[in-house]
């Protein structure tokens, strides 16, 4: 491929363009599925299981069917036969097991919130009224709610279809792991508990399914990250040709990984539309979101680290146990998080040996699955806590400890002891930048001075590695129909502007903005001359869309290659018009120019006019196409790893257990930066979500599996008032696997923010001999670590 429009001379790539859709959203012109109203549209509500595990003994729908405004009431018997069941297992997770799922609970209910019956009515209020008229009797079955029952061999399985509560077990071990511990000068260890939390998107899950029997067309307006995945799911599960299924994902009010899983309610809504031949709408309310959106984390980790006398890390040994739901989530499974936890342990460090074990356990709570920074916060928090522990034992400064152990910037390519292959990372440079950015030495002096006054502040550091640009190795090899490639169609309009239809999607992170910047640079246009269309399976080529950090790295490269392909085609047409060699021409400033002199030869608008309206004037045999299609799949490294380091500066009130976040720093290397404003937005948003998990967010359940805090009054999300200023620095190490050189940045903030804050809290508490090992770090837990109030009962390791 020609390098004529090489990104070493970009005009808009790398520039801080404002997010294109922000003005539209600010003006109230957003188009969300939640706001969509179609003619003849009806509304769904669900009757849900009030208990965590039980057997349905009676379900009487008659009174609900007669209620005002009700159009239909469905049970499992009505809907489940319309659709194939789905099972969230993948073949590359050898030995994993999960029961099959179907639309509505049939006989057995498996978590609080499990949908049992569906009411369709003229309004959502009438549907809810009718739900109250359904008679449901359930006999209690033992509920598996927590580690102790999940590990109890005498406890029945969370679902009767499961043989046990073990969903998956994996083990990674290098040959030298045991010997490394035997010969270690120092071994540090600990146990960590990571609470359950959930995405809490501003717009809840929303779907409007609209089946037209006359054309055989199913259109699903669906607030998802992955429209093509759902096109495939709906087509296959309901037995429709996939080109008769159109999924439209317009503006999506946040997703964070939560909106790419298959949910019972969405399937029920599609089934109901297929039955009723009219649009059916389901929008989750906040309580439903808490009890039916996937949750994340819920891990317990026991880990130790072996070091030599100079503080060199020799090995880690890790046991990660995680509680999912009664099923593994479809289609990505609920084991991917644990799999990443045990593989990301120690990732920044030159650690020769490793032994990691993962156990994924079923329980009767809503499923856990992929949520922003899948597995990263757990691996980073455990690794970084052990590094700090070792530094303390060895009397080394935490910065020095990390500087001694990170993989050297000149040591790439290399592989981790857990099997990840790294192309090129920049830990040393990132640490150097961070140290200067935060004035580390000044902060340490300030910390010491304030200690004298009884003010306890702490500094926490956390290096991290982030997985981005996933290829087919992520899911595809395991048999998942999840696209690792993306596609774009770029065209010159008859008026000489550009249009790019691309399969990556936009949920507020600015995908459309960066695609416009990239395409503009290839065509010699400005970004506002490039209209970008996303989120409609009928309007764009198919592709993976948005998950695991791939919009910039994979979508961006797709757009770049598509743009170049169109540029070459436009130069061919221009060459025919101008009787010039296409190679001698280039596109700049909205015109075809002489590549050598930059002299304008032909305006793009004129080229488009001729090719569109007067193709008869072109030499015979000239291809007058003004559109090109391009697909791109990552090749080379299976993932594009990025790296960075974060620091937190906190103050702990040792009488109240309250933590004040004073400042936060991130130095991050996401490769080629396409738009620094949007990169920083991604990092800041990610940090805030990481801080939420570290200090506030937790889905609380009782021993019977009842969710105790299903509202935003009790489930605390991070709010602007509590957030610190977040200062960001960059190192730019482009990947050589692509022309663009971009990697992902969406998970970086979340990956290490919690680890940095936990290390900072523990640094603040060091004089008290107190140490936090559980998130969220609530005031009660901090006080308990200080010996005030009871500690939570610990479920034993067995």
């Amino acid at each position, binding site marked *: 491929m020609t390098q004529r429009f090489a990104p070493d001379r970009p005009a808009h790539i790398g520039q801080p363009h404002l997010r294109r859709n922000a003005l539209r959203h600010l003006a109230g012109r957003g188009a969300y599925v939640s706001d969509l109203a179609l003619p003849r549209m009806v509304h769904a509500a669900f009757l849900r299981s009030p208990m965590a595990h039980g057997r349905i003994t009676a379900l009487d729908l008659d009174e609900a069917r007669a209620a005002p405004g009700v159009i239909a009431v469905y049970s499992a018997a009505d809907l489940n036969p319309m659709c194939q069941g789905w099972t969230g297992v993948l073949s590359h997770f050898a030995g994993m097991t999960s029961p099959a799922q179907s639309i509505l609970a049939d006989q057995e209910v498996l978590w609080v919130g499990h949908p049992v019956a569906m009411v369709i009515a003229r309004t959502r209020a009438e549907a809810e009224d009718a739900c109250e008229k359904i008679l449901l009797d359930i006999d209690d079955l033992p509920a598996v709610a927590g580690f102790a029952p999940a590990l109890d061999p005498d406890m029945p399985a969370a679902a009767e279809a499961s043989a046990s509560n073990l969903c998956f077990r994996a083990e990674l071990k290098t040959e030298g792991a045991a010997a490394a511990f035997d010969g270690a000068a120092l071994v540090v260890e600990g146990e960590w508990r990571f609470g359950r939390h959930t995405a809490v998107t501003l717009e809840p899950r929303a779907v409007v399914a609209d089946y037209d029997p006359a054309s055989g067309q199913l259109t699903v307006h669906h607030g998802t990250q992955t429209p093509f995945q759902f096109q495939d799911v709906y087509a296959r599960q309901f037995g429709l040709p996939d080109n008769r299924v159109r999924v439209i994902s317009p503006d999506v009010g946040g997703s964070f990984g939560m909106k790419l899983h298959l949910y019972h309610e969405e399937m029920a809504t599609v089934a109901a539309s297929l039955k009723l031949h009219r649009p059916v709408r389901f929008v989750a309310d906040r309580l439903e979101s808490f009890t039916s959106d996937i949750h994340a984390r819920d891990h317990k980790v026991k880990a130790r680290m072996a070091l030599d006398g100079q503080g060199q890390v020799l090995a880690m040994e890790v046991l990660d146990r995680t509680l999912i739901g009664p099923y593994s989530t479809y289609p990505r499974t609920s084991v991917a998080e644990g799999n990443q936890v045990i593989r990301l342990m120690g990732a920044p460090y030159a650690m020769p040996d490793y032994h990691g074990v993962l156990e994924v356990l079923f329980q009767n709570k809503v499923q856990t699955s992929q949520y922003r920074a899948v597995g990263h916060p757990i691996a980073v928090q455990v690794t970084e806590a052990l590094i700090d522990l070792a530094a303390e034992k060895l009397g080394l400064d935490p910065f020095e400890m990390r500087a001694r152990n990170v993989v050297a910037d000149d040591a790439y390519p290399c592989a981790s002891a857990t099997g990840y292959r790294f192309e090129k990372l920049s830990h040393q440079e990132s640490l150097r930048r961070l140290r200067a950015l935060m004035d580390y030495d000044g902060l340490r002096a300030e910390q010491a001075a304030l200690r004298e006054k009884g003010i306890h502040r702490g500094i926490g550091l956390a290096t991290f590695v982030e997985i981005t640009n996933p290829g087919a190795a992520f899911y595809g090899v395991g048999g998942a129909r999840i696209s690792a490639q993306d596609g774009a169609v770029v065209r010159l309009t008859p008026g000489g502007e550009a249009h790019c239809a691309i399969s990556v999607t936009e949920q507020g992170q600015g995908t459309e903005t960066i695609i416009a910047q990239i395409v503009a640079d290839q065509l010699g246009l400005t970004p506002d001359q490039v209209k970008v269309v996303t989120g409609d399976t009928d309007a764009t080529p198919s592709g993976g869309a948005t998950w695991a950090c791939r919009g910039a790295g994979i979508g961006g490269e797709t757009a770049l290659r598509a743009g170049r392909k169109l540029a070459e085609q436009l130069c061919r047409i221009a060459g025919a018009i101008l009787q010039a060699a296409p190679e001698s021409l280039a596109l700049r400033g909205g015109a075809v120019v002489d590549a050598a002199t930059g002299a304008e030869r032909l305006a793009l608008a004129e080229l488009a006019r001729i090719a569109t309206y007067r193709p008869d004037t072109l030499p015979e045999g000239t291809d007058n196409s003004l559109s090109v299609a391009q697909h791109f799949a990552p090749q080379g490294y299976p993932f594009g790893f990025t790296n960075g380091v974060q620091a937190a500066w906190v103050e702990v009130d040792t*009488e109240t257990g309250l933590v004040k976040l004073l400042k936060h720093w991130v130095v991050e290397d996401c490769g080629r930066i396409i738009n620094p404003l949007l990169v920083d937005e991604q990092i800041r948003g990610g940090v805030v979500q990481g801080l939420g998990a570290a200090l506030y967010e937790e889905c609380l359940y009782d021993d019977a599996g009842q969710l105790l805090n299903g509202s935003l009054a009790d489930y605390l999300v991070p709010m602007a008032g509590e957030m610190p200023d977040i200062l960001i620095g960059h190192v730019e190490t482009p990947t050589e696997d692509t022309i663009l050189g971009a990697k992902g940045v969406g998970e970086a903030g979340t990956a290490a923010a919690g680890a940095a804050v936990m290390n900072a809290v523990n640094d603040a508490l060091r004089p008290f001999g107190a140490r936090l090992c559980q998130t969220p770090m609530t005031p009660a837990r901090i006080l308990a670590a200080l010996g005030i109030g009871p500690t939570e009962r610990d479920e034993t390791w067995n």
Partner: protein
Amino acid sequence: MKAPPFAYRLAEDLPQALDLYARSAGDAVYLAGGHSIVPSLSLRLQAPALLIDISRIAALAGVSLGPEGLRIGATTPHAVLLEDPLVATHAPLLAEAARHVAHPAIRNRATFGGNLVLADPASEFPAVVRALRAELEVEGPEGARQIAAEDFFLDLYTTALQPGEILRAVLIPPPAPGQLVAFAELARRQGDFAMVGAAVRLVPKAGVIGTADIVFHSVGLTPMRAVAAEAALIGQALDAATIAAACAAVAQDLQPGDDPVLPAATRLHLAGVLLGRLLRRVQGEWA
């Protein structure tokens, strides 16, 4: 989260509101700012047949100063308590507490009276009116009456109001000479329900504490008067030893329950810490 069906009537004045209630067979709820009743309807925790909107009744509005003290109409929004100069001058404790009540959007609509009659034990204002020894003016089917704040909060979400009665205004007596007040709470985020909060009112008398009002919120079923802590202060100079004694006495006054994120013992500890901070703050202002 959609409300069950209900009827709605806008009452022009108090007699009409009372009349609408009288004809509702007891199946009606008064609506003012709607910040308790609307979520409660949406969660289907309540399903009254009729909402009687009292938010536009002139007799329930306004803040005024008279010889008996500061009179605050029941439909006064929280935001007014935060900004009104009369409140700032004559009931600064209330203005101080208002800063901790939720967020601006909520404070613009939610009403002082609505907050008091809900009697949420985690709420700030019930503790404050109790500490200030306010009087609550009530209109009802049987006529008007006045209830001392001390006797108003009976149990969880339960007040001395009889069915159909409307809280008309709150009368806050003029401050005693030398009176010192302080309010604070410990919350995980600004605007959250507090882990614990307290309102304190001390009146010096001949160099020692003559009167003490200490009322906690978020630690029991009602705003909780800390009688033992008050007793530890009365007749004493406000010094470190007295403060320590008052904080220790809190354990006799409060018996909070466990909740999912805050064990009872931790909450009790926080109550002691908070009282200590409040009393030291007052100590700084002690003439």
